């Protein structure tokens, strides 16, 4: 006997995304920026790409941060929407409670990691690599 989930599975995936996308993307962007910085400080490696100036990497870092901003803000927005919709749903209390929780969690995660991304942006703009 098999249990087919189909669309329900997709909806579940959406909920997981709302819950976890911000920390995942932020972790990735942090890791990439760190590795990029380590790499750019070893210029012999980057000269192959004609990047002789260490500061040339800063726009790339900012681009990554901008993308992260986008994801975390979108996450906060979708979380808020899910929370609102769940709050006004009247039929299935258990499902509404779950979605309120996930929505609120996604919204707060999004906001928190947006703030952290802001902190990283300041660091990148403020400090020179190496």
């Amino acid at each position, binding site marked *: *006997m*098999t249990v087919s989930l189909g669309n329900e599975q997709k909806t*579940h995936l959406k909920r997981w995304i709302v819950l976890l996308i911000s920390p995942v993307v932020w972790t990735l962007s942090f890791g990439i920026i760190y590795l990029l910085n380590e790499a750019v400080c070893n210029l012999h490696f980057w000269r192959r790409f004609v990047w002789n100036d260490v500061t040339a990497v800063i726009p790339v870092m900012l681009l990554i941060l901008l993308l992260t901003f986008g994801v975390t803000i979108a996450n906060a927005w979708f979380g808020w929407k899910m929370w609102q919709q769940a709050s006004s749903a009247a039929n299935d209390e258990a499902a509404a409670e779950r979605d309120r929780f996930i929505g*609120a969690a996604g919204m707060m*995660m999004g906001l*928190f990691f947006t703030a*952290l991304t802001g902190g990283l942006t300041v660091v990148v703009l403020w400090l*020179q*690599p190496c």
Partner: protein
Amino acid sequence: MTTNATSDQTPQKRWAASETAVPPLNAAYPEADTPDPAAADKLENAWADPKGFWYLLNAIQNDAVGGRLMLTSFAFFLIAGAMALLMRVQLAQPESDFLSADVYNGLFTMHGSTMMYLFAVPMLEGFAILMLPFMIGNREMPFPRLGVFSYITFALGGLLFFSSYLVNTVPDAGWFAYAPLSGPEYSPGIALDYWLLALGVAEVAAIAAGIEIIIAILRLRAPGMSLARIPLYVWAMLVTGFSILFAFTPLIIGSLLLELDRKIGTQFFNAGAGGSPVLWQHLFWIFGHPEVYIQFLPATGMMAMIIPVFSRQRIQGYPFVAIAMVATGFLSFLLWVHHMFSVGLPQITLGLFSAASILIAIPTGVQIFAYIATIFNGRPVWKTPFLFAVGFLVTFVLGGITGVMVGSVPFDWQAHDSFFVVAHLHYVLIGGVVFPIFAAIYYWMPKINGKLLDERLGKWHFWLMFIGFHVSFFPQHILGLWGMPRRVYTYPPGFGWDLYNLISTIGAFMIGIGVAVFIVNFFYSARYGRHAGKNPWGASELEWSVDSPPKNYGFSVLPIVRSRHPLWSQDNLTDGPERTQNLVQDLARWPLNWRAVLVTSALDAKPEEIFRVSGPSIWPFLTAVSLVTIFGAEIFELRPVALLGIFGLVTGIVGWNWPEDAPTTTEEEEAFAQKHNIPVRPHGSRTVNRGGMWLFILILGIALTTLLLSYFYIRLETHIWPPQNLPLPTLTWVGIATLPVLLNAAVLHWALRQLRKAKQRCLRAGLAAAFLLEVSTFALLTYDFSQLTFDWRINAYGSLFWVIGGFLFLLLLIGIGMNIFVQAWAWRGIYSPERFTPVENTAVFWTAMIAFWVVTIGVLYISPYRF
């Protein structure tokens, strides 16, 4: 507290009527449904562990495994604590000759390593294995045999580690074993091999328990316990479980690389041959810092359970605390460099990690403020668990504040390697972990053995430990700021350090006396303690609805959860959707002769599957002993013994996974499945096993990623790549070998589809074809490596090439091994359209293998041409 109670309501109904109120201690709390005696006896027998001698080797129940883990780790705690006292005696006065420098070096290494690897993590994992099934309202952990394996490897690994004293070669390079001090040049002999290999075993045990915990939380929760209703401790353990996988795997890889440097002459950490000692620091601290949160998160989860009960107040800000735990888990992986601020790293790196280190105070602070708000809005009942909880709050906050201080780069440069850091880490780890563990023992012991621990002795224990702790460790802040370095076995008089050191030693002995009082209390209460009853604290969670101590089966009728605080908000644990009610009631009556566990969905905890959880077996024991034999033999380079261990390991794994006949009839299964519209799988769960396979693949992926990042780290520090005019890798053979890898996954999925259509011959043909493809890949890669003109000793590039290649060989061998097992069983006709999980898992593994292969070949063979 106010309620809308009316006089005709029962006490429980009255309190359940309010979503915010908390029932009084003496209220009637709902209890797990009790089956009829005949059914109960049968269930008890089905879930019982073997008796007598076989209990020692085979016991598999979560309470046996968890309890053993806790007791053994507590024994290690006592040993490490005694070591700390010896060190404090040595430091009590200047120029003391109580201990020699060598003995002192060994003591601080063994103390730190034991506390970090052999006490805190196993204790917390043991507690989780013991209590989780009751907390999440199910009967058992998903992989009981993995739990046994985890315990035996941990216990034997710990014994192996301490056996270094028997041969007088004690590890002495600190709990972090920095290279090059720990390398072959500066630490010849076998002392560091003990550290790397014996603790390596314990790390494997930690990962095994982590897998169990994750799957249990995601898939074995009681019906209705949706993501929004999970107890906060369980949330904490979910984050911790994943953190263990992501943190311990890089450490195992780092330990492997260092051991290879020591044993076969690789050059990973030898700067003279292109390696990097700083790489070891990265690999170690990418484990080492999350390790702190791997210990702290379960501890704070325990607090989130205990504080509301003794404050008689629901936890304030449940979603905030749950989110803060998840955020802490992520952030904890991005702080490791703050242990390396004084290494000489780029500015942005320092800035990023300093910012992240300070920012983690936000989610941690959210948790602390939630606990304070809960106490503030509640009516505290000052029992011993609550005293330890308050001790946690006070001490951990102080440790957190100094944590923010050392997170700042300029301050860290000043305080680095001083006693200030010793004070900080003990405030965090004793305040943030040991106090909660004692709180948890006082709180949950009545559930574990049915007896309340003595309150008067408990209060003595608390005050001795609390005062002793601050007397011991607060002066160390001052010592550090006055320049006393850590890890020195003595110091000259006249620096103003003498008095503070003496005070610190007095405090340490107070802690020791406090722990002694606890041990007396433990044994006294076990014999003379007051019987606890089911819910002595008036608590709100499911574990308090079962007997104390619980029956072997835990829950006969699985509870149905409709609230975050089921015992505070629900009249009973049996009402719910009709389908679920019928299911849990019938599950209490069938099956009664095998260990049935309910699988539920990850988000909503809706019933999805019933499966037979594995029973007692000697194979996990044999597998664990074999693994420890391999590691132990390698310390002394006893290769024949290691080979024997490998043979035992393979035999153990085969026996462990050997298919067992279902103790039921197909008619019974189908009748139950059709009645409740749910699959019944007496041969093992598809969902749980698939989850286990994905986690296994995740671990392999983390290991491979660690190796590849090490490759790029060393590559970045080298001007010409490959160095020393070594030839670029040839692409011919690996290019050809890529084809069978790609084809193999397709063939296996085809074979799986044929099995689902009951075409046994096609299944066998598909598996055989896949086997040929796999062996051809292996042969082609072997041939390619046989053509290499350099070996692993030549330089760091050679080491990386051979070891990453070796890892690829290992992955291929695992996949081929899986295919052989599955094929053997396929020829015996064991698989069917209903029973196909091993085939599916093999196909999934080889699908993941495509990614492993492509990325590894891309890095090893292609990247040197471009980068």
